[in-house]
Protein backbone atom coordinates (compact mmCIF):
# COMPACT_ATOMS: atom_id res chain seq x y z
CA UNK A 1 0.00 0.00 0.00
CA UNK A 2 2.34 2.61 -1.15
CA UNK A 3 1.17 6.19 -1.22
CA UNK A 4 2.03 7.73 -4.56
CA UNK A 5 5.34 9.43 -4.19
CA UNK A 6 4.99 13.14 -4.67
CA UNK A 7 7.39 14.64 -7.20
CA UNK A 8 9.36 17.66 -6.09
CA UNK A 9 11.63 19.91 -8.07
CA UNK A 10 14.09 20.14 -5.20
CA UNK A 11 15.17 17.23 -3.04
CA UNK A 12 17.21 18.61 -0.15
CA UNK A 13 20.13 16.65 1.22
CA UNK A 14 19.70 16.25 4.96
CA UNK A 15 22.59 14.92 7.00
CA UNK A 16 21.64 13.47 10.37
CA UNK A 17 24.33 13.14 13.01
CA UNK A 18 22.94 10.71 15.54
CA UNK A 19 24.18 8.81 18.55
CA UNK A 20 24.18 5.08 18.21
CA UNK A 21 22.44 4.33 21.49
CA UNK A 22 19.21 6.29 21.18
CA UNK A 23 18.44 8.08 17.97
CA UNK A 24 20.04 5.50 15.70
CA UNK A 25 18.02 2.83 17.44
CA UNK A 26 14.95 5.07 17.17
CA UNK A 27 15.49 5.45 13.43
CA UNK A 28 15.98 1.72 13.20
CA UNK A 29 12.71 1.17 14.99
CA UNK A 30 10.98 3.48 12.53
CA UNK A 31 12.44 1.37 9.74
CA UNK A 32 11.56 -2.02 11.20
CA UNK A 33 8.07 -0.74 11.96
CA UNK A 34 7.81 0.17 8.26
CA UNK A 35 7.06 3.79 8.97
CA UNK A 36 7.60 6.08 6.00
CA UNK A 37 9.92 9.04 6.20
CA UNK A 38 11.72 11.11 3.56
CA UNK A 39 14.67 9.37 2.00
CA UNK A 40 16.42 12.75 1.90
CA UNK A 41 18.08 12.01 5.20
CA UNK A 42 21.54 10.42 5.32
CA UNK A 43 22.23 9.07 8.76
CA UNK A 44 25.71 9.19 10.25
CA UNK A 45 26.15 7.20 13.40
CA UNK A 46 28.31 8.41 16.27
CA UNK A 47 29.01 6.85 19.65
CA UNK A 48 27.38 9.81 21.41
CA UNK A 49 26.26 13.36 20.71
CA UNK A 50 29.29 14.34 22.76
CA UNK A 51 31.43 13.07 19.87
CA UNK A 52 29.79 15.33 17.30
CA UNK A 53 32.27 18.09 16.61
CA UNK A 54 30.96 21.35 15.11
CA UNK A 55 33.56 20.95 12.37
CA UNK A 56 31.54 17.98 11.06
CA UNK A 57 28.65 20.30 10.42
CA UNK A 58 30.82 22.77 8.56
CA UNK A 59 32.18 19.90 6.51
CA UNK A 60 28.69 18.60 5.75
CA UNK A 61 27.61 22.01 4.50
CA UNK A 62 30.73 22.27 2.37
CA UNK A 63 30.02 18.90 0.83
CA UNK A 64 26.50 19.77 -0.15
CA UNK A 65 24.17 19.37 2.82
CA UNK A 66 21.09 21.57 2.71
CA UNK A 67 19.96 20.74 6.21
CA UNK A 68 21.48 19.19 9.32
CA UNK A 69 19.96 17.16 12.09
CA UNK A 70 21.77 16.42 15.31
CA UNK A 71 20.04 14.00 17.58
CA UNK A 72 20.81 11.87 20.60
CA UNK A 73 19.53 10.50 23.87
CA UNK A 74 17.22 12.53 26.07
CA UNK A 75 18.92 14.35 28.97
CA UNK A 76 19.65 11.83 31.68
CA UNK A 77 19.66 8.90 29.22
CA UNK A 78 23.09 9.35 27.63
CA UNK A 79 24.99 6.07 27.54
CA UNK A 80 28.06 7.97 28.68
CA UNK A 81 26.05 9.82 31.32
CA UNK A 82 26.83 13.41 30.35
CA UNK A 83 27.79 13.47 26.66
CA UNK A 84 24.52 15.04 25.64
CA UNK A 85 24.70 17.68 28.38
CA UNK A 86 28.06 18.77 27.01
CA UNK A 87 26.75 18.61 23.45
CA UNK A 88 23.77 20.73 24.43
CA UNK A 89 26.04 23.55 25.59
CA UNK A 90 28.41 23.19 22.67
CA UNK A 91 25.62 23.41 20.14
CA UNK A 92 23.90 26.24 21.96
CA UNK A 93 27.16 28.13 21.43
CA UNK A 94 27.77 26.91 17.88
CA UNK A 95 24.30 28.00 16.79
CA UNK A 96 25.10 31.52 17.92
CA UNK A 97 28.33 31.45 15.93
CA UNK A 98 26.61 30.20 12.78
CA UNK A 99 23.92 32.80 13.18
CA UNK A 100 26.54 35.50 13.55
CA UNK A 101 28.27 34.62 10.32
CA UNK A 102 24.97 34.55 8.50
CA UNK A 103 23.76 30.95 8.40
CA UNK A 104 20.00 30.56 8.61
CA UNK A 105 19.40 28.46 11.72
CA UNK A 106 16.25 26.96 10.21
CA UNK A 107 18.56 24.61 8.36
CA UNK A 108 19.73 23.00 11.56
CA UNK A 109 17.63 20.97 13.91
CA UNK A 110 18.56 19.48 17.26
CA UNK A 111 16.46 16.81 18.87
CA UNK A 112 16.34 14.12 21.49
CA UNK A 113 14.97 10.89 20.04
CA UNK A 114 15.05 7.77 22.18
CA UNK A 115 15.27 4.18 20.98
CA UNK A 116 11.52 3.86 21.53
CA UNK A 117 10.56 6.99 19.63
CA UNK A 118 10.38 5.77 16.05
CA UNK A 119 7.40 8.05 15.55
CA UNK A 120 9.22 11.12 16.80
CA UNK A 121 12.12 10.34 14.45
CA UNK A 122 9.72 10.30 11.52
CA UNK A 123 8.20 13.62 12.61
CA UNK A 124 11.52 15.34 13.17
CA UNK A 125 12.98 14.19 9.87
CA UNK A 126 9.83 14.97 7.90
CA UNK A 127 9.46 18.45 9.35
CA UNK A 128 13.10 19.32 8.78
CA UNK A 129 13.05 18.00 5.22
CA UNK A 130 9.94 19.97 4.31
CA UNK A 131 11.23 23.10 5.99
CA UNK A 132 14.53 22.91 4.13
CA UNK A 133 12.78 22.05 0.89
CA UNK A 134 10.78 25.24 1.22
CA UNK A 135 13.97 27.20 1.86
CA UNK A 136 15.69 25.88 -1.25
CA UNK A 137 19.30 24.75 -1.60
CA UNK A 138 21.96 25.87 0.87
CA UNK A 139 24.33 27.69 -1.43
CA UNK A 140 26.67 29.60 0.85
CA UNK A 141 29.23 26.98 1.79
CA UNK A 142 28.99 25.27 -1.59
CA UNK A 143 29.80 28.53 -3.34
CA UNK A 144 32.90 28.83 -1.22
CA UNK A 145 33.95 25.37 -2.28
CA UNK A 146 33.42 26.27 -5.92
CA UNK A 147 35.58 29.31 -5.43
CA UNK A 148 38.12 26.97 -3.93
CA UNK A 149 38.43 25.37 -7.36
CA UNK A 150 38.34 28.57 -9.32
CA UNK A 151 38.61 32.01 -7.83
CA UNK A 152 38.76 34.06 -11.00
CA UNK A 153 35.80 36.14 -11.98
CA UNK A 154 33.81 34.03 -14.41
CA UNK A 155 32.52 36.92 -16.47
CA UNK A 156 35.66 38.97 -16.82
CA UNK A 157 36.31 40.64 -20.18
CA UNK A 158 39.11 38.22 -21.13
CA UNK A 159 36.98 35.12 -20.66
CA UNK A 160 34.05 36.85 -22.29
CA UNK A 161 36.16 37.46 -25.37
CA UNK A 162 37.18 33.80 -25.44
CA UNK A 163 33.57 32.63 -25.15
CA UNK A 164 32.48 34.94 -27.89
CA UNK A 165 35.24 33.77 -30.18
CA UNK A 166 34.09 30.18 -29.76
Amino acid at each position, binding site marked *: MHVDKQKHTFEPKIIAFVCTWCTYAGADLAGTSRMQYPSNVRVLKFPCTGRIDP*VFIIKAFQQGADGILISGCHPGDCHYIAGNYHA*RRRFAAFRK*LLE*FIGVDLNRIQFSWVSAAEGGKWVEVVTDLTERVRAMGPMVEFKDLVLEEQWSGNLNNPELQAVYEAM
Partner: protein
Amino acid sequence: MTQTIDISSYSTITDAIRSEARRILSDSTVSAVIGYTAGRRKGSTQPIVITTADDADQLIFTAACLNDLVVYLTKAKKDVPKSGRIGIVVKGCDLKALVGLLGESQLKRENLYLIGIPCSGVLGSLLKPSAELTTETIASKCCECSDQLPVGCDFVPTVTPAPLPDLEKRYANEIARLEAMTPSERWEFWKEQFSKCIKCYACRQVCPFCFCEQCLCDRNRPQMVEQTPRPSGNTAWHLVRAMHLAGRCAGCAECERVCPMDIPLNLLNRKMAKELKELFNSEAGFEVRDTGPLTSYREDDDQSFIR
Protein backbone atom coordinates in the same frame (compact mmCIF):
# COMPACT_ATOMS: atom_id res chain seq x y z
CA MET B 1 36.78 64.91 20.02
CA THR B 2 40.20 63.35 20.37
CA GLN B 3 41.47 63.49 23.92
CA THR B 4 44.90 62.66 25.26
CA ILE B 5 45.08 59.83 27.74
CA ASP B 6 47.14 60.34 30.85
CA ILE B 7 49.96 57.81 31.00
CA SER B 8 52.30 59.77 33.23
CA SER B 9 52.28 56.78 35.60
CA TYR B 10 54.14 54.62 33.06
CA SER B 11 57.56 55.95 34.00
CA THR B 12 56.91 55.20 37.68
CA ILE B 13 55.73 51.75 36.61
CA THR B 14 58.89 51.23 34.57
CA ASP B 15 61.05 52.09 37.60
CA ALA B 16 59.01 49.80 39.83
CA ILE B 17 59.26 46.88 37.39
CA ARG B 18 63.01 47.34 37.13
CA SER B 19 63.64 47.36 40.86
CA GLU B 20 61.30 44.44 41.45
CA ALA B 21 62.91 42.43 38.63
CA ARG B 22 66.34 43.23 40.03
CA ARG B 23 65.25 42.08 43.47
CA ILE B 24 63.64 38.80 42.46
CA LEU B 25 66.50 37.93 40.13
CA SER B 26 69.25 38.72 42.60
CA ASP B 27 67.65 36.82 45.47
CA SER B 28 66.88 33.95 43.06
CA THR B 29 63.14 34.06 43.59
CA VAL B 30 62.91 33.58 39.85
CA SER B 31 65.29 32.37 37.19
CA ALA B 32 63.99 34.70 34.52
CA VAL B 33 61.68 37.63 33.98
CA ILE B 34 59.61 38.03 30.85
CA GLY B 35 58.92 41.68 30.13
CA TYR B 36 59.13 44.40 27.54
CA THR B 37 62.16 46.22 26.29
CA ALA B 38 62.73 48.98 23.75
CA GLY B 39 62.54 47.82 20.15
CA ARG B 40 64.75 48.99 17.32
CA ARG B 41 62.39 51.60 15.95
CA LYS B 42 61.97 54.68 18.06
CA GLY B 43 59.20 54.14 20.58
CA SER B 44 58.57 50.50 19.69
CA THR B 45 58.88 47.68 22.16
CA GLN B 46 59.51 43.98 22.03
CA PRO B 47 59.36 41.09 24.46
CA ILE B 48 62.51 40.18 26.34
CA VAL B 49 63.49 37.40 28.71
CA ILE B 50 66.10 38.53 31.21
CA THR B 51 67.98 36.18 33.50
CA THR B 52 70.35 38.44 35.40
CA ALA B 53 69.70 41.35 37.75
CA ASP B 54 72.05 43.48 35.67
CA ASP B 55 69.64 43.32 32.75
CA ALA B 56 66.71 44.62 34.81
CA ASP B 57 67.29 48.14 33.51
CA GLN B 58 66.39 46.95 30.03
CA LEU B 59 62.78 46.51 31.11
CA ILE B 60 60.28 49.21 30.26
CA PHE B 61 56.57 49.83 30.27
CA THR B 62 55.05 52.21 27.75
CA ALA B 63 51.87 52.57 25.76
CA ALA B 64 53.60 50.52 23.06
CA CYS B 65 53.76 47.39 25.26
CA LEU B 66 51.10 45.56 23.34
CA ASN B 67 52.19 41.94 23.45
CA ASP B 68 50.41 39.48 25.65
CA LEU B 69 53.55 37.89 27.09
CA VAL B 70 51.61 34.98 28.55
CA VAL B 71 51.97 33.17 25.24
CA TYR B 72 55.63 32.57 26.13
CA LEU B 73 54.55 30.43 29.06
CA THR B 74 52.45 27.94 27.17
CA LYS B 75 53.42 24.48 26.12
CA ALA B 76 53.89 25.57 22.56
CA LYS B 77 56.91 27.60 23.61
CA LYS B 78 58.40 24.93 25.82
CA ASP B 79 61.76 26.34 26.79
CA VAL B 80 60.75 29.23 29.00
CA PRO B 81 58.66 27.44 31.62
CA LYS B 82 61.18 24.61 31.99
CA SER B 83 63.65 26.80 33.78
CA GLY B 84 62.15 27.11 37.26
CA ARG B 85 60.02 29.92 38.65
CA ILE B 86 59.46 32.67 36.13
CA GLY B 87 58.59 36.32 36.60
CA ILE B 88 56.27 37.83 34.06
CA VAL B 89 54.89 41.30 33.42
CA VAL B 90 51.13 41.23 32.85
CA LYS B 91 48.47 43.78 32.10
CA GLY B 92 44.91 43.03 33.19
CA CYS B 93 43.94 41.43 29.88
CA ASP B 94 47.12 39.32 29.83
CA LEU B 95 46.46 38.22 33.38
CA LYS B 96 43.01 36.98 32.41
CA ALA B 97 44.62 34.79 29.78
CA LEU B 98 47.13 33.54 32.33
CA VAL B 99 44.33 32.76 34.78
CA GLY B 100 42.58 30.83 32.02
CA LEU B 101 45.71 28.75 31.50
CA LEU B 102 45.97 28.09 35.23
CA GLY B 103 42.38 26.84 35.09
CA GLU B 104 43.27 24.56 32.19
CA SER B 105 46.23 23.16 34.16
CA GLN B 106 48.73 24.46 31.66
CA LEU B 107 50.60 26.46 34.28
CA LYS B 108 51.21 26.22 37.99
CA ARG B 109 50.79 29.36 40.04
CA GLU B 110 53.74 28.50 42.30
CA ASN B 111 56.02 28.49 39.27
CA LEU B 112 55.16 32.07 38.45
CA TYR B 113 55.90 35.46 39.89
CA LEU B 114 53.36 37.91 38.55
CA ILE B 115 54.22 41.56 38.11
CA GLY B 116 50.91 43.26 37.42
CA ILE B 117 50.56 46.58 35.62
CA PRO B 118 48.01 49.18 36.72
CA CYS B 119 47.20 49.94 33.12
CA SER B 120 45.84 53.08 31.50
CA GLY B 121 45.72 51.56 28.05
CA VAL B 122 48.04 50.75 25.17
CA LEU B 123 48.18 51.72 21.53
CA GLY B 124 46.05 49.93 19.00
CA SER B 125 48.96 49.28 16.69
CA LEU B 126 52.73 49.43 16.56
CA LEU B 127 52.78 51.07 13.15
CA LYS B 128 53.42 54.38 14.85
CA PRO B 129 54.97 53.25 18.12
CA SER B 130 55.79 56.71 19.39
CA ALA B 131 52.30 58.04 18.76
CA GLU B 132 50.63 59.73 21.65
CA LEU B 133 47.99 57.64 23.44
CA THR B 134 44.67 59.29 22.71
CA THR B 135 41.03 58.29 22.51
CA GLU B 136 41.76 57.61 18.83
CA THR B 137 45.03 55.69 19.01
CA ILE B 138 44.13 53.57 22.03
CA ALA B 139 43.56 49.86 21.37
CA SER B 140 39.94 48.82 20.92
CA LYS B 141 40.30 46.26 23.69
CA CYS B 142 41.23 49.03 26.15
CA CYS B 143 38.05 50.92 25.29
CA GLU B 144 36.02 48.07 26.77
CA CYS B 145 38.38 47.07 29.55
CA SER B 146 37.08 46.97 33.09
CA ASP B 147 40.19 45.37 34.52
CA GLN B 148 42.78 48.10 34.58
CA LEU B 149 43.99 46.94 37.98
CA PRO B 150 45.19 43.33 37.91
CA VAL B 151 44.15 41.19 40.87
CA GLY B 152 46.10 38.40 42.57
CA CYS B 153 49.60 39.35 41.44
CA ASP B 154 52.75 39.04 43.52
CA PHE B 155 53.74 42.60 42.85
CA VAL B 156 51.86 45.60 41.52
CA PRO B 157 53.50 49.05 41.39
CA THR B 158 51.61 51.38 43.71
CA VAL B 159 50.19 53.81 41.23
CA THR B 160 46.55 54.44 40.55
CA PRO B 161 45.78 54.58 36.86
CA ALA B 162 44.03 57.79 35.87
CA PRO B 163 40.42 57.05 35.02
CA LEU B 164 39.93 56.66 31.27
CA PRO B 165 37.85 59.24 29.43
CA ASP B 166 34.63 58.08 27.83
CA LEU B 167 35.63 55.75 25.04
CA GLU B 168 33.65 54.45 22.14
CA LYS B 169 32.88 50.76 22.66
CA ARG B 170 34.15 49.75 19.23
CA TYR B 171 33.71 45.99 19.53
CA ALA B 172 30.31 46.16 21.14
CA ASN B 173 29.12 48.65 18.54
CA GLU B 174 30.44 46.60 15.65
CA ILE B 175 28.87 43.43 17.04
CA ALA B 176 25.57 45.26 17.39
CA ARG B 177 25.88 46.58 13.84
CA LEU B 178 26.43 43.06 12.50
CA GLU B 179 23.64 41.61 14.60
CA ALA B 180 21.25 44.12 13.10
CA MET B 181 22.06 42.98 9.56
CA THR B 182 20.17 40.29 7.69
CA PRO B 183 21.82 36.85 7.64
CA SER B 184 22.86 37.25 4.02
CA GLU B 185 24.45 40.64 4.70
CA ARG B 186 26.37 39.08 7.56
CA TRP B 187 27.45 36.22 5.33
CA GLU B 188 28.72 38.69 2.75
CA PHE B 189 30.57 40.61 5.43
CA TRP B 190 32.34 37.56 6.78
CA LYS B 191 32.92 36.05 3.36
CA GLU B 192 34.79 39.18 2.40
CA GLN B 193 36.75 39.15 5.65
CA PHE B 194 37.61 35.45 5.58
CA SER B 195 38.60 35.57 1.94
CA LYS B 196 41.44 37.89 2.92
CA CYS B 197 43.04 35.31 5.19
CA ILE B 198 46.39 33.99 3.97
CA LYS B 199 46.54 31.19 6.54
CA CYS B 200 49.76 32.47 8.02
CA TYR B 201 48.44 31.28 11.40
CA ALA B 202 49.92 34.27 13.15
CA CYS B 203 46.64 34.49 15.07
CA ARG B 204 47.09 30.92 16.28
CA GLN B 205 50.74 31.41 17.07
CA VAL B 206 50.13 34.46 19.23
CA CYS B 207 47.13 33.04 21.08
CA PRO B 208 47.86 31.87 24.62
CA PHE B 209 45.05 29.34 24.30
CA CYS B 210 46.10 27.75 21.00
CA PHE B 211 48.61 25.52 22.72
CA CYS B 212 47.62 22.25 21.03
CA GLU B 213 50.55 20.06 20.10
CA GLN B 214 48.87 19.41 16.79
CA CYS B 215 46.15 21.74 15.63
CA LEU B 216 43.06 20.10 14.23
CA CYS B 217 43.46 22.37 11.23
CA ASP B 218 46.89 20.91 10.42
CA ARG B 219 45.74 17.32 10.39
CA ASN B 220 45.22 15.66 7.08
CA ARG B 221 44.16 12.18 8.10
CA PRO B 222 41.31 12.84 8.16
CA GLN B 223 41.43 16.35 6.91
CA MET B 224 38.79 18.36 8.70
CA VAL B 225 39.73 21.77 7.36
CA GLU B 226 41.00 22.55 3.90
CA GLN B 227 44.52 23.87 4.43
CA THR B 228 45.12 26.11 1.47
CA PRO B 229 44.30 29.79 1.96
CA ARG B 230 41.13 29.62 -0.11
CA PRO B 231 37.62 30.77 0.78
CA SER B 232 36.11 27.50 1.95
CA GLY B 233 38.99 26.40 4.13
CA ASN B 234 39.42 29.91 5.47
CA THR B 235 35.82 30.03 6.63
CA ALA B 236 36.18 26.65 8.27
CA TRP B 237 39.40 27.74 9.98
CA HIS B 238 37.76 30.81 11.43
CA LEU B 239 34.74 28.90 12.66
CA VAL B 240 36.89 26.20 14.24
CA ARG B 241 39.09 28.82 15.82
CA ALA B 242 36.11 30.70 17.22
CA MET B 243 34.64 27.49 18.63
CA HIS B 244 37.89 26.27 20.17
CA LEU B 245 38.37 29.59 21.90
CA ALA B 246 34.77 30.03 22.97
CA GLY B 247 34.58 30.23 26.74
CA ARG B 248 38.38 30.49 26.94
CA CYS B 249 39.41 33.65 25.08
CA ALA B 250 40.38 36.35 27.56
CA GLY B 251 40.02 39.19 25.08
CA CYS B 252 43.67 40.23 24.81
CA ALA B 253 42.95 40.81 21.10
CA GLU B 254 46.44 39.75 20.09
CA CYS B 255 45.01 37.67 17.22
CA GLU B 256 43.52 40.75 15.68
CA ARG B 257 46.64 42.83 16.22
CA VAL B 258 48.96 40.37 14.52
CA CYS B 259 46.72 39.56 11.58
CA PRO B 260 48.52 40.95 8.55
CA MET B 261 45.27 40.99 6.60
CA ASP B 262 43.35 43.14 9.10
CA ILE B 263 40.62 40.62 9.69
CA PRO B 264 38.52 41.67 12.71
CA LEU B 265 39.19 38.34 14.37
CA ASN B 266 38.43 39.32 17.91
CA LEU B 267 34.87 40.21 16.93
CA LEU B 268 34.10 36.52 16.65
CA ASN B 269 35.71 35.74 19.98
CA ARG B 270 33.97 38.62 21.70
CA LYS B 271 30.65 37.71 20.20
CA MET B 272 31.09 34.18 21.57
CA ALA B 273 32.10 35.56 24.97
CA LYS B 274 29.00 37.72 25.00
CA GLU B 275 26.74 34.80 24.08
CA LEU B 276 28.30 32.51 26.67
CA LYS B 277 27.83 35.13 29.30
CA GLU B 278 24.18 35.42 28.38
CA LEU B 279 23.63 31.69 28.08
CA PHE B 280 25.66 30.36 30.98
CA ASN B 281 26.58 33.45 32.97
CA SER B 282 30.24 32.69 32.55
CA GLU B 283 33.09 34.97 31.51
CA ALA B 284 36.87 35.23 31.73
CA GLY B 285 38.09 36.92 34.89
CA PHE B 286 40.79 36.95 37.54
CA GLU B 287 39.48 33.94 39.41
CA VAL B 288 40.89 30.54 38.48
CA ARG B 289 38.12 28.17 37.41
CA ASP B 290 38.64 24.43 36.84
CA THR B 291 35.98 24.35 34.17
CA GLY B 292 34.76 26.81 31.61
CA PRO B 293 31.27 27.27 30.19
CA LEU B 294 31.82 24.64 27.50
CA THR B 295 33.55 22.10 29.71
CA SER B 296 30.79 21.99 32.28
CA TYR B 297 27.02 21.76 32.24
CA ARG B 298 23.93 22.00 34.33
CA GLU B 299 21.10 19.57 34.08
CA ASP B 300 18.67 22.44 33.67
CA ASP B 301 20.57 24.25 30.89
CA ASP B 302 18.35 25.90 28.33
CA GLN B 303 17.20 23.50 25.63
CA SER B 304 14.51 25.54 24.01
CA PHE B 305 16.27 25.06 20.65
CA ILE B 306 16.11 21.26 20.93
CA ARG B 307 13.10 19.32 19.87
